[in-house]
Every structure is written in C-alpha cells, then in structure tokens.
C-alpha cells in the first residue's frame, strides 16, 4: 500500500475507511512525530471522523491525542466546563456542528424581526461557545453550515427570508465576520466542501437515522482531509515553494523543438487557454508569498525565452530560482532548496513527465510530488485539493515575502564587490527595532514561531493564545526584532522568549528567519537580552539546544556567546552564562 498516495488527492474514500487500521499501522512505523492534543466537540457522531483524521495527521507527522465529547455534548462541554477537558489541555478544539444542529429555523408566519431574532439566538450560541473556550488559549476550528438536502420552498428557499438556505447563508456570513473579532478562530468550510463533492454525496439519510452521522461515510475522509490541511497550517507544516517543469507543464509543446512561436500559451486554442489558466493559478501563489522555481531539462537560453512569449502570464523574474540545464532533476531540486534557503520538505514539484516525478520522489522523498498525470486540465486540482499551500491568514509579511528574496539577490550580488564581509555589512546601513511583544505583531510572531526550523534553538511551538498570555506576563522577557537595510525592510524576523525565575533567565525560545542569516542580527538580539537581564538584576542565563533534523546550524550558537556547556544528552545540550563573564560582541546594526 502506497500510503502517501492513498492519503492525497484524489482520495479513494472507500479504501481509506475500509483499511484504516492497516493504514494506521503503516503510518506508525515512522517515529518522528510532533504530538498534539486535539479535542473534538461534536454536534453529531464523530467517532469515524476522529479515526480518519488521525490517519491524515499521522501522514503529516502529527501524532494526535484525542478528546471526544459525548454525543452531541459540544455545547455543554464548551460552556459548563469539564474536568477531563481541562486536564486534556487541548492544542486544538474542533467543533463539528452542521445544519442538523440549528436550533430553530424561521416559520412561514415569522416577521423579519422574528427571523433576525432567531438568527441572533443561533449566532450567540456559537459566540458564547468560542468565548468560553478562549480560556484554553488554543486554536478553535469551527465548521460553518452545509445546506439542508431538501427544500420544501424549492428555489425560493435561497432568497425568501423564510428559507432555510437563506437562513444558513446569513449564519455563515455572521461566522465569517466573527473570525475578525475572535483570535484563534478558524472556519472549516463544509459549505464549500459539501458543494464540491455534491450535497447528495455529502449527506446520507440512512446513516443519519441509524447512527446520527451528519455526513456520509464517503464524505468523512474528505472532511478529515480538509481539517488536516487547516491543522497543518496552524502548526506551520505548509509548503513554501512551487517548483515547475516547463515543457508541457507551464506551456504546451517543447520550446527547444517548437521554438517560441510553436509553444501553446495564450487564448488561441483550448490547450493554450488551459496552460494560461495554470500559469494564472501559479501567479496567484506568487502574489501571496509562495516562492516559485523552475526545474527543467532545457538549455537555459531556450527556457528563459519561453517567458518572453507575448501571452505568458509568468515572467522570468517571477522565479526565485531558475534551474534549466541537463542535470538530473533531483539534484536541481536540492540546489533550489539550498539557493532559496528553505527545507527540502517545503517544496512541491509539478512535472507532466511520470519518469521525472518518479526520480524526484524516490531520490528526495520529502519533496511533495503529486501524480498530476499529463493533462494540463488536472494540474491545478492536484495542487488545490492537496492543500499544500493552505494559509490560515493573509499577513502583509507573506505578501511581501518574495520581495525579500529579490532584495536578498541584490545583496548577494553586492557582497562580491567588498574587500571584507564587515565592509559589506557596514554598507548595508542596517537598523533594527528590538522591542517587547506588542499586540500589532502577535499574529506575525505566532506565525514565525510555528514555521521557523533552521535558526531555532528549541523549536518550541506556541499557539496564538499562548503568545497573548506570554505578552501579558511580566515573568517573561519577550522580544521581537525587525531589521531594515538600504535595500528594504526585512520585517519581523527574530524572537527571543526568556522565562525569568529568581535571578535566572531561561531562554525557552530563540529563533530567527533564514532571510537574515549572517547579518549579525543574533548579536543585536542577544545584546538587548543582556540589557533587559541587567535591568532585572539577573545574574545567570540558561540556554537550551534541542536537536532536530533541521537546526544543526545553531548547535554551537551558545558557545559563540561564551556560554559554558553544562549538560549533554543525545545531541541536546544545556548551556549556562554568568552575566559577568559576557563580553559584548561587535555588530553593524543600529538598534532602536
């Protein structure tokens, strides 16, 4: 059984349900998991949802521990508390409700005021649930509402105020608005999902009457898959870079043989239109901060020329890394990851050629290589349905990310022209803002914490709620760093969280985005930490290095800062620094 393929688009729902125990055993053979506690509060039966969700999470390296509410006790569990749930200390609470949980639909005699009142009652129920659950400081995933399968009002159901469909649309609107007010609230869009698979496939009356499942067995893997995409995104497991082949992937035809005039792109033919749609889709990713790269067997000159076609949507400059040569693709892919400075598991590779896909997925298994087939019509679906790039929010920082990489290219070019690296750093005219967490940055701070892997001493992950608590807790020194230079603003790129106890500061978290490596920003951050510590009469700092597959670059960081090694086991180390022994380090960044 090829597990990875089994748990990606297109799903074989029947096989997943039937073979779930066997699949779980296979998945558990892997031993590198991030453990997470997930509470499921259900308004209908959730047993099989839990079982199947577990498979998708295991497949993504998350080992869930579940709490499941008693049947239809989601409201009671949320509002009146529950010792078991308190002890469980969830990282995520999933509220599985749907149209079967609507308390009261409008009646035909109801006035507009009556109906607005019903709407308010319904929405307030959920608001009080979210409010009450906020004490857990964890992410809340809430289903919106699917449509009822039958409509006695027919088409009118959708636009008369007494219609159930109308009522549900209003409720969903209110849910959307609520996500702006409530931090940590994410919607699981079952309204879309049920439309996508079709309402008649989504809801199974027999299963509802027999077992109170509010969706069909076939829909359960789809629901679990969708949920797992949100959970992946919350824990920073989304992909960062889309790597594209060129011939018969970005355009129809072979540029080396057919020439610029011979390739299919634009609106002249159906095939050309389909490739244009694919390029447009890739461009949308680029615009929200996903990095694009090319990996193609081609002469560089020909490959580049393809993007000068009058109808091309993507341009040569849209690609942060452009590998068009005759090297094996798995080598090029590894070079791309190195060049952009991201983990190899952040890459998704799209190629119409099954042989190339095979070579890449067998030589670098951590790269995602969907079996897209060779018909351009299906390429987008494979990227879209697999949710590789699922965002949970759109931050300005994401939208600017590609600019950072472009700025970095300019910096690298300049680096070569200086006598010494210090001269280069001075020429960058860097200034940093290093301050305590403030509310405007909490979203970005949470995001950075959950996705930074390389310069990260402990790789501890925090939920948005935990970050809010830390921001308001005086027993923590919590600093963010922003760095600007003459090429542009790098944004918020560094974080330290130090826990103060007695006269000692324990560095629970220290991380920095790879975007600003080798700029001396870590020295500036640590210097500020020292200042804070001195103000608080702290005499000792304790640092930890927890080894992961990706953070080797900081294994000796504390050594550079004059710390003494005090403990070591299995690659993990503990370090101690007496503040008196610290010698200030030189860096070329003006702070605050």
């Amino acid at each position, binding site marked *: 059984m090829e597990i990875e393929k089994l748990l990606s688009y297109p799903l074989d729902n029947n096989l997943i*349900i*039937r073979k779930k*125990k066997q699949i779980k055993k296979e998945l558990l053979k892997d031993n590198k998991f991030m453990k997470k506690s997930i509470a499921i509060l259900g308004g209908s039966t959730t047993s*099989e949802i839990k079982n199947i969700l577990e498979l998708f999470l295991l497949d993504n390296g998350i080992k869930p521990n579940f709490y499941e509410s008693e049947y239809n006790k989601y409201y009671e569990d949320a509002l009146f508390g529950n010792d078991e749930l308190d002890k469980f200390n969830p990282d995520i609470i999933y509220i599985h409700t749907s149209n079967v949980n609507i308390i009261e639909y409008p009646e035909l005699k109801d006035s507009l005021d009556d109906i607005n009142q019903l709407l308010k009652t319904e929405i307030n129920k959920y608001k009080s649930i979210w409010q009450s659950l906020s004490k857990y400081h964890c992410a809340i995933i809430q289903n919106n509402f699917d449509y009822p399968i039958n409509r006695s009002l027919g088409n009118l159901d959708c636009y008369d105020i007494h219609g159930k469909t109308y009522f549900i649309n209003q409720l969903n609107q209110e849910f959307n608005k609520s996500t702006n007010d409530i931090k940590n609230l994410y919607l699981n869009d079952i309204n879309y999902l049920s439309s996508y698979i079709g309402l008649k496939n989504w809801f199974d009356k027999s299963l509802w009457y027999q077992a109170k499942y509010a969706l069909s067995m076939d829909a359960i893997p789809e629901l679990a898959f969708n949920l797992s995409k949100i959970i992946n995104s919350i824990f920073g497991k989304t992909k960062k870079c889309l790597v594209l082949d060129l011939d018969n992937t970005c355009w129809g035809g072979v540029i080396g043989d057919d020439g610029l005039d011979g390739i299919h792109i634009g609106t002249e033919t159906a095939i050309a239109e389909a490739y244009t749609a694919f390029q447009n889709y890739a461009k949308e990713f680029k615009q929200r901060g996903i990095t694009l790269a090319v990996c193609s067997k081609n002469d560089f000159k020909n490959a580049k020329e393809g993007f000068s076609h009058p109808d091309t949507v993507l341009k040569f400059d849209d690609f942060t890394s452009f590998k068009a040569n005759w090297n094996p693709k798995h080598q090029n892919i590894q070079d791309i990851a190195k060049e952009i400075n991201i983990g190899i598991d952040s890459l998704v590779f799209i190629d119409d050629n099954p042989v190339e896909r095979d070579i890449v997925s067998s030589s670098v298994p951590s790269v995602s290589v969907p079996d897209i087939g060779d018909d351009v019509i299906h390429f987008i679906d494979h990227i879209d349905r697999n949710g590789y790039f699922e965002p949970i929010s759109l931050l300005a920082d994401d939208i600017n990310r590609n600019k950072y990489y472009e700025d970095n290219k300019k910096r690298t070019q300049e680096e070569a022209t200086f006598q010494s690296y210090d001269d280069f750093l001075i020429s960058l005219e860097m200034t940093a803002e290093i301050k305590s967490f403030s509310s405007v940055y909490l979203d970005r701070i949470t995001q950075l914490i959950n996705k930074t892997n390389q310069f990260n001493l402990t790789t501890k992950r925090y939920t948005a709620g935990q970050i809010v608590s830390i921001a308001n807790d005086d027993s923590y020194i919590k600093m963010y760093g922003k760095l600007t230079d003459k090429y542009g603003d790098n944004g918020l790129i560094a974080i330290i969280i130090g826990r103060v106890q007695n006269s000692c500061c324990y560095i629970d978290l220290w991380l920095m985005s790879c975007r600003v490596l080798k700029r001396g920003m870590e020295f500036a951050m640590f210097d500020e930490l020292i200042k804070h510590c001195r103000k608080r009469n702290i005499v000792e700092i304790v640092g930890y290095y927890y080894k992961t597959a990706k953070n080797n670059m900081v294994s000796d960081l504390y050594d550079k800062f004059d710390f003494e090694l005090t403990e070591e086991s299995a690659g993990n180390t503990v370090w101690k620094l007496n503040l008196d022994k610290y010698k200030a380090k030189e860096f070329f960044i003006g702070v605050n």
Partner: protein
Amino acid sequence: MNEIEIVERLEDIFEDIFDERIVIARNITADDIEDWDSLNHINIIVAIEKEFGIKFTLNELQSQKTVGDTIDLIIKKSNE
C-alpha cells in the same frame, strides 16, 4: 454468488474492521464479538454495502439479527 464466496468476503471485511481473522458462522451475532459495538456495526454495514454494491433499506437494517440474516439479504439483493 454462492454462500461460501459471500462468507469469505465477509471474513475479509471483519478482518479489516476488527483487526483479526474471525471465522464466520450463520448464528454469530454482535454479542459474540467483543468489539462489535454500535459504531463498528455501522462500519460493518457500510463496508458490506460497498463490497457487494447494495444498499439496505431501513427495514432491512433492522431485520438483521444474525450474520445468517445478513447473508440471506446479500444473496437476495444481489439477485434483484
């Protein structure tokens, strides 16, 4: 489709669901298998429907007391 073939396919289904090979006899009921609770019952029903390409009516769902009842229904519905 003869009864032997049906029993074999049922045994495959039970193996997937209960994670062990169970020898099926006509007189077996939910009480005879420890893990055969109401949730697994649904999983068995759905798996049978998929396996044999049939769909039980609500009446038929209620009328199945033993595995023998189920086998008879599968034979009857497959021939419809």
